[in-house]
């Protein structure tokens, strides 16, 4: 590799453009099942480079054929995810936009207020706060709202006669992204047998992502939190505020 040629501005520009494209593709894959492809792609590309450097023409050619076939297979198998990715291309910002601390505090206060009211009235609720891993497939199973988060809206949605009260709510940043979403049930045999489907769904989605899930019981009004498949029950609104604040701050 000619270092002088490599360092000229056109080369740098090409690498920058390629970098952004590759990063955006990987970022998108990170929120889906196709994330496991990342490791495979990385290994293939690095191997191709190593074989080329070592001057192994047969292995280089062989790996090129395998890589070509691999790309075709990926396009066929992950066609729905790729189509969605193209639709959402460019939606993400280049810079990291930090939500204002006041906005996060307000969300937490609204959440705790709503949880307290729902708990007193014994109205069941299931709310997943997303962090790094996207919950795209669950959002698609529900009704997309993209509404500003508020205690009143949250209570409204989970009110028993509301059309969207069944299922889970997904919150991302300062937005209620979707409601009435289907969450996967946990098949953890160590969970208490008395736990209902709502709690199992909350634990289930926390097992399949890094989401923090707030669960309000319909039976006794207790407030629980599910993180990484672990359920913590009988929380007071203050406990809920403290834990949520700690966990959501950590993810940033």
């Amino acid at each position, binding site marked *: 590799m000619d270092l002088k040629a490599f360092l000229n501005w056109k080369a740098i520009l090409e*690498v920058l453009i390629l970098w952004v494209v590759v990063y955006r593709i990987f970022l998108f894959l990170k929120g889906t099942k196709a994330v496991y492809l990342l490791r495979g792609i990385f290994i293939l590309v690095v191997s191709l480079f190593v074989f080329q450097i070592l001057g192994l023409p047969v292995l280089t050619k062989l790996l090129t054929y395998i890589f070509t076939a691999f790309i075709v297979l990926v396009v066929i198998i992950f066609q729905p995810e790729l189509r969605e990715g193209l639709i959402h291309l460019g939606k993400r910002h280049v810079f990291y936009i930090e939500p204002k601390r006041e906005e996060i505090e307000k969300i937490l206060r609204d959440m705790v207020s709503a949880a307290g009211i729902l708990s007193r009235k014994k109205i069941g609720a299931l709310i997943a706060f997303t962090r790094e891993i996207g919950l795209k497939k669950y959002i698609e199973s529900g009704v997309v709202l993209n509404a500003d988060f508020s205690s009143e809206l949250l209570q409204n949605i989970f009110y028993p006669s509301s059309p969207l009260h069944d299922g889970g709510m997904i919150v991302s940043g300062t937005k209620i992204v979707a409601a009435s979403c289907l969450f996967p049930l946990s098949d953890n045999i160590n969970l208490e047998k008395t736990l209902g489907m709502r709690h199992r769904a909350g634990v289930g989605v926390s097992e399949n992502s890094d989401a923090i899930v707030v669960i309000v019981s319909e039976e006794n009004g207790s407030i629980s939190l599910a993180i990484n498949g672990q359920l913590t029950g009988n929380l007071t609104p203050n406990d809920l505020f403290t834990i949520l604040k700690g966990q959501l701050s950590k993810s940033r």
Partner: protein
Amino acid sequence: MEFWKNISIKKTVTHNFWLKVGSLIIAMIIRSYVLNEMIQGVKI
């Protein structure tokens, strides 16, 4: 314009840091490979 006030350069760098590093490595490898193929006159 308020959008610009909330930009964090530090977080832009550190957020998904290893994914960014991996993407840069792959971008450099892809460019190097394609350039090599072009120089050798091999049709891609």
